[in-house]
């Protein structure tokens, strides 16, 4: 479904009178193949390029070299086929929940009645029934993210891209949202790329987990998550889970220590 071939991206920070220009290789020779309806998580320390990679698949960031193909077509720019859920929700504060969820449909030109029907279904599916007329300012973090999720699902995308979507939420809400996401994904399978900082999320949600490290940003390993579907929180207590978590933490610890050392130097 998605193939990333030889992706390379360097960020150049222009110099000023006091500081020299510097460049960071944020992605170097990244290759990845993702099957249809696979749930992939990407985990790694800050600066390892995971968000850049996600944005490249989204078409929001252009690669310096290499190519990304999604559903057979080359990725050249953003598209609702690769809908995105944002870490800081990206809701329009001046529009109510209904309008926010229906936004993608409105842009596409879908008629008012039709798009409101679709939106209503999704608002129900994410558990926000009754809040159709609320403004984002009146919602909690978890509720806002549900709106973001509903909006992404409303355009029936082939691919769902999630950029640390639960990063800004408290622990309890985060866990609830993880369970919701699993439930939703089971009912309407999609190809998902989920970027996260959290070890638990990386394992619990995924079919495969991609480990990345920085300087330069690259994939160190891709782990299979043989925890069976449908997935529930019970999986957390299996020894497979515990081993995987240990392995990922090992990788992360080394990578993060390296990163801290490099930054401090």
């Amino acid at each position: 479904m998605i193939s990333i071939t030889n992706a390379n991206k360097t960020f150049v920070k222009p110099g000023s009178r006091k500081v020299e220009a510097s460049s960071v290789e944020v992605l170097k020779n990244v290759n990845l193949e993702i099957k249809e309806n696979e749930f992939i998580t990407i985990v790694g320390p800050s600066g390892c390029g995971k968000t850049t990679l996600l944005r490249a698949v989204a078409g929001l960031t252009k690669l310096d070299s290499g190519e990304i193909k999604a559903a057979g077509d080359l990725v050249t720019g953003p598209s609702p086929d690769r809908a995105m859920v944002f870490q800081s929700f990206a809701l329009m504060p001046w529009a109510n929940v209904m309008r926010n969820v229906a936004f993608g449909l409105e842009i596409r030109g879908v008629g008012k009645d039709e798009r409101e029907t679709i939106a209503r279904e999704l608002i129900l599916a994410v558990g926000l029934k009754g809040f159709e007329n609320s403004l984002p300012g009146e919602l909690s973090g978890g509720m806002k993210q549900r709106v973001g999720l509903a909006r992404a699902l409303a355009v029936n995308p082939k691919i769902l891209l999630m950029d640390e979507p639960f990063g800004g939420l408290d622990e309890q809400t985060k866990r609830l949202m993880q369970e919701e996401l699993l439930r939703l994904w089971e009912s309407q399978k999609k190809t998902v790329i989920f970027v996260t900082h959290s070890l638990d999320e990386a394992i619990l949600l995924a079919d495969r987990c991609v480990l990345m490290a920085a300087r330069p940003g690259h994939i160190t390993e891709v782990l299979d998550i043989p925890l069976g579907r449908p997935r529930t929180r019970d999986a957390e207590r299996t020894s497979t889970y515990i081993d995987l978590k240990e392995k990922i933490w090992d990788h992360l610890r080394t990578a993060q220590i390296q990163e801290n050392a490099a930054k401090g130097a």
Partner: protein
Amino acid sequence: MNKTKRYLPSLGFFVFLLLAWQVFRKLFDSILIPSTFGMVRAFFQLLVKGSTWNAFWISNQSLVLGFVISGVVGIAVGLLIGRRAWLERAVDPWLDFMLVVPMAMIMPALIMAMGFSLSSRVVIVCLFTFPVIVINTQAGLKQVSSELVDMAHVFGANEYKLWVKILIKGAAPLVWSGLRSGLGRAISGMVLSELLLSSVGIGILFQTFQGNFDPEMTFGLVALLVCESLLLLKIMNVVERRAIPWFYIERV
């Protein structure tokens, strides 16, 4: 982007403006609309005339005196009332009043009281400038983080030390901002008094040019005034940067 490339679009726009002005002239076909050449010529003619400099000297006295007095008194008042909430509330309505009331309408009353002297013109400039400086100074004092004040008290600072070491430094950026806005208003005040009272200096020049139906000279004079105001503001900028360099560190 190299320097010439950067300024090219605005130069291009300048040419566009000149052309537009020519079209405007042709459309309205009136002697009252000066030609570009005439305007530029008038500007330089005025620049070299001694009488122009004389007029500027006379008129600017009110500007300089008014601004300096407003600055000193304004900052003093601002600092005084900034620390006592009730005092601030008591002075507030008058500051708001001075800001909102069209000063220009009130000027005749002032002239009646003080005549066409330098003092009346200075008072006018003060009325324009004073409220802005007080308000900004007041705000500057208020926004000094209370944490800093607490810190100073913890380390044993008395009221005097607190003022000198913390409050004045902390309020400085907004005080300078007030001085900058105040300068703009002072210039407005001076120009308004020249235009409406036209008793001395630049005011007389305006009257003469208008009486002779000489729009080119009027333009030249206005252009000179614009240059003066830009120059004064630039000087204020430089002084400000010297006074509070710590406010302008480039974030790396």
